[in-house]
């Protein structure tokens, strides 16, 4: 925790120095951005937009992670599913976000559903790819053990498979959350009347770097808090059986 604060302080110091070197117009200093955050917070706009974005991020993330992990698990364990699904996966993986978003909006209208579906579809293949690697490297020895002792499907999933997938799920979740957020920004830019992405889009039209950073940092602060108070304690708990590193 102490180390974390030191690191954050260093980050802000680096930012401050950078803004002094680059000039406030190109990189506003931390105070200016903090003030902008306070301003937006006072007007209620921050909470409103952040709330809208977070809700979208949360829903899309949960859908994409759940579906993506499931598909990844199946593809990693069954050769046929892998062969059949792989080209689809690569196509979806490499389809530009823009294409998916535009098609989703055009077909399902400028609705919340379309927005969330578009984000989830963008993230899904990445979760799938990561979890598939995990499923491929599952330990056959433990599988055999579970089979000999006739463990049920649920027991196997929960006690044999998931703990092995944990690092892959962690990687998929962490990179996935950031990806979902990046795509939500584009989705909001292209077809939502609110949210951080919308505000950043507007600020960009005006080249208001301070406001862009204000909104970006507000979101990052939320992520840092989630990471520090939720994800990392959970991770420590899940990895408590591991011999500790130096």
């Amino acid at each position, binding site marked *: 925790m102490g180390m974390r604060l030191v690191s954050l302080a260093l980050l802000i110091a680096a930012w401050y120095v950078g803004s002094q070197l680059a000039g406030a117009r190109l990189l506003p200093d931390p105070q200016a951005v903090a003030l902008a955050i306070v301003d937006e917070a006072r007007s209620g706009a921050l909470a409103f937009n952040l709330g809208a974005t977070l809700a979208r991020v949360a829903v899309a993330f949960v859908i994409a992670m759940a579906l993506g992990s499931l598909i990844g698990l199946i593809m990693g364990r069954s050769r046929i599913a892998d062969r059949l699904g792989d080209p689809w996966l690569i196509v979806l993986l490499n389809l530009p976000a823009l294409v998916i978003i535009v098609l989703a909006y055009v077909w399902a209208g400028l609705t919340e559903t379309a927005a969330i579906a578009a984000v989830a579809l963008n993230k899904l293949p990445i979760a799938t790819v990561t979890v598939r690697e995990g499923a491929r490297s599952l330990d056959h020895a433990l599988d055999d053990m579970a089979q000999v002792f006739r463990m049920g499907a649920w027991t196997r999933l929960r006690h044999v498979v998931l703990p092995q997938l944990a690092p892959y799920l962690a990687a998929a979740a962490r990179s996935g959350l950031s990806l979902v957020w990046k795509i939500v920004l584009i989705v909001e830019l292209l077809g939502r009347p609110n949210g951080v992405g*919308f505000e950043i889009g507007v600020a960009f039209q005006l080249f208001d770097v301070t406001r862009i950073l204000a909104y970006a940092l507000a979101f990052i602060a939320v992520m840092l808090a989630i990471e520090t108070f939720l994800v990392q304690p959970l991770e420590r708990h899940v990895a408590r059986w591991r011999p500790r590193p130096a």
Partner: protein
Amino acid sequence: SATAEDRIRLAVQRTGTLAWELDVIRTHGLDRKFDLAIETVELASTEAGKIALKGGSADLMLSDWLWVARERSLGDNLVFYPSSSTLGAVMVPAHSSIREIVGLRGKKLAVAGGPLDKSWLLLQALARQSGLDLKKQTTVVYGAPPLLSEKALQGEIDATLTFWNFCADLESKGYRRAIAMDDVVKGLGARGPVALVGYTFDGTWAVRNRSTVERFLAAARQAKDILASSQPEWQRLAPRIRISDATALAIYRQRYGEGIVRRPFADEEADARALYLVLAEIGGAELVGPARELPAGTFYRPAAAE
């Protein structure tokens, strides 16, 4: 309360002119006066409006007739009604030596909106008349307009062709309009200021909701007149436009006022027809689609004009 016919859904870019007009309409109760229930889909980018209209999430948006013509030629029944003739310009620093189109030779020219931007195409067409091939004889940089403004201010670029509101910003920061698009258009044979931008909507929908459309166009027109004539309105709108600088605001007001369409409908259409040929030649099928000339019916004809 409004009946179903009175409902109209607008795709509005938050920082765009339609948003200002809508603000005036609401503030002055023009919507109630014309018995309209205006719903808005607020969006953060221009392209979002096209998605909204295409996806059926909005009835009306702001676009240029070039795109409408292209869509028509590809089979989509979109129609266009002129709204504003305000155009951008090539902006240069105050002390720059660039004063006319030939001055661009050998310079670094930034173009907002990419290679198919209509102003850019028109500028190229005019340059050709002076024997200048801008694509070959200048260093062209494409980019997002806000980014290019910033680059211009940084001095990385000699001249910037950008949209009118960005021009106004640059002007308020001491930049000069070296080549105004109004002049370019005239140089290409237009008889007056051409309204490239206008209200765009589905033709079939417009037929079914003729009265609604026309009442909306009337309301919008009144809003424009209010805006053109009232200084306090601009003061009030400043936060929406997100401008605090008085100089900039004045330039905005001036340019906006100049752009209000005052010419007969037929003149607009005739000029559009002429410019279309120019654009089709220089942009090719990639830009205009299969049609050789402005497709018939591109311009929406209000009952009053018939």
